[in-house]
């Protein structure tokens, strides 16, 4: 188990990581997710030993490793730029950590390459510079796994790969985590990576962990408006009033035409926003769902088999009041609505998510 207590990093007056407590169980796939500049890379570098914390402690299975040199930590970092040694072959790159840690080489290079789905016969003796981006990524992974560290740290290593390759490697990473039983800590700004691979998510904003939990939990009950919007494209309505009633809240918003009742967890602050995801909403000529508002359709964008319908309340020019419904193309065509028409943006009230300030 990896645990940090009051972990803090300051650059002059800037607090990059603010007294962070995290706890990651052995074998877990944990993801630290947040926008650029939220302190996630600094946090990871402190765990790897490449950056000295201003304050706080890092413990691994009860042993204090806060001041241990990177050489002496059972952690291995996969860099964003992969950082393969350019003057070495693939084999030499992978043997490097094995020799440093006195691990028997034997057939390990071939095994590792197979583990990361590279053909040893084709790639083992290539120069590191001869590889494509995806191959470099795989070699970097094999090299980090080579001396069997307890914890694999990954600093957005998939960010610069194309979409299809990224998707495939995400799945492979999740499989590898399961196969090896090794703890993986992944840092990313990309929500799709976070949701797809992780057992546990830490959402970081301005150096603070603002929510911890499984991806489902955070998706279902985001702690803040920021997380709700970060977890997926969503429409947000500011609430004017919220009255508690048996584990639910009756909420009212001037922008919405109705009052509704939405379930809400008790241990959080009073709800301030109602959030509904694009793909849970639809437009129609009649108000048929139990929650909605009258809007004017401003734009219709076809995205594969769904359309994005951009709309806003008639006569309202406020940028914050632009809403989007994502619905299947056929369903949208069936409504006969076109750009410029007046319609109802609506959704099933149970799809509403309440979030505190």
């Amino acid at each position: 188990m990896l645990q940090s207590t009051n972990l803090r990093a300051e650059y002059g007056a800037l607090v990059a990581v603010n007294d962070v407590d995290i706890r990651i169980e052995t074998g877990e796939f944990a993801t630290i997710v947040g926008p650029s500049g939220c302190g996630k890379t600094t946090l990871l570098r402190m765990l790897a030993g490449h950056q000295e914390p201003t304050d706080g402690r890092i413990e691994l299975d009860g042993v204090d490793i806060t001041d241990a040199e990177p050489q002496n930590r059972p952690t291995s970092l996969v860099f964003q730029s992969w950082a393969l040694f350019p003057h070495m072959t693939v084999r030499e790159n992978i043997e490097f950590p094995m020799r440093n840690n006195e691990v028997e080489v034997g057939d390990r290079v071939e095994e590792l390459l197979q583990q990361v789905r590279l053909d040893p016969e084709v790639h083992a003796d290539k120069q590191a510079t001869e590889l494509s981006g995806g191959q470099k990524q795989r070699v970097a992974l094999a090299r980090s796994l080579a001396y069997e560290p307890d914890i694999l740290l990954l600093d957005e290593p998939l960010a610069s790969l194309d979409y299809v390759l990224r998707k495939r490697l995400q799945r492979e990473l999740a499989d590898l985590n399961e196969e090896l039983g090794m703890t993986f800590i992944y840092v990313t700004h990309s929500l799709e990576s976070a949701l797809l691979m992780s057992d546990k998510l830490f959402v970081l904003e301005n150096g603070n962990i603002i929510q911890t939990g499984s991806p489902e939990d955070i998706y279902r009950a985001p702690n803040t408006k920021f997380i709700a919007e970060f977890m997926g494209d969503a429409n947000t309505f500011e609430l004017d009033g919220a009255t508690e009633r048996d584990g639910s809240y009756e909420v009212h918003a001037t922008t919405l035409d109705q009052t509704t009742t939405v379930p809400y967890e008790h241990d959080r602050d009073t709800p301030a926003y109602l959030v509904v995801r694009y793909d849970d909403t639809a437009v129609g000529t009649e108000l048929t769902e139990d929650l909605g508002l009258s809007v004017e359709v401003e734009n219709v964008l076809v995205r594969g088999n769904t359309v994005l319908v951009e709309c806003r309340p008639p006569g309202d020019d406020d940028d914050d009041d632009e809403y989007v419904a994502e619905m299947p193309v056929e369903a949208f065509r069936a409504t006969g609505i076109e750009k410029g028409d007046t319609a109802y943006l609506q959704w099933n009230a149970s799809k509403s998510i309440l979030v505190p300030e």
Partner: protein
Amino acid sequence: MSTLQRLRTRLDRSGASESGLVGLLTPPGILLLPMSLLLLVMFVGPMVAIVVFSFQTGNSIVANPLEWSIATYEEVVGGMISGEGVYGDVLVNTVAVSATTTALTLIVSYPAAYALARRIERYKLVFLMLLVIPLFTSVNIRVFGWALFLVQNGVLDSIVGLFGVEEYASLMYQRSTIILGTTYVYLPFMLFPIYLSMLSIEDATIEAAQDLGASNYTLFRRILLPLSKPGIVIGSLFVFVLSLGANVEAEILGGGSIFTIASNIQYSFGYSQNWPLGSTQAVGLLIITVVSGIVILRTIDLREIAERGD
């Protein structure tokens, strides 16, 4: 004519002019023309003249018919083999000065380049400026400065005199004094290539090595040294070749007692007015320079360095 036809004729025409000498006169070949002319006049011409003179017997060329003589070669090469005359000593002096200078500048520069490129943030610019500014001053002035410092009854004498030291062996006019001068003068030519190659090593590469359990020795031996090797090689080439031709340092700091090929060439052309002898030695220096350049450059794969930049 339609646009497409015009395009086609233009393409046909440019395709034809690509080949042969005409290609040199179209961009981008024409961009190299001024430099090519300069090299032809300033480098190739004089070199040919030197080679021709080395096969003459006097300070003029008899053109019709052109006469050839290998007398000076017999004198120089024969002298080296038999050990008569100064030529053997001159060769030993020259190579010793160059090799020692190269080794000394490397030993001094490597740690400094590492520190400047990777460790020091404050005062880094000051250090670099201190290294560059001497290059703006004439070598003559700097070497005369050294002479004033070391010469008998000079600055050094006055300083040690303050501590009661009255008599000691003169530091001037020795091979080691020449080496001191060349080491000082050519230090930046070693330091900057190594500094640049150190700069081009990514931080992540070094961090990755540490992360993968490399000790400081392994980090140096397997990562820093091979990745900075191009800088070491280029720097060594600069310093070795420049020291081979070091004339001022040998002249002033070596006085009249230690000769190198460069100072001997000047002596032959100047004082003794023996152009064929000077030319022969110049050809010899050129051969040594080219051979040592090839040997040094063969230790690195230039293509590999070019590919590494991606």
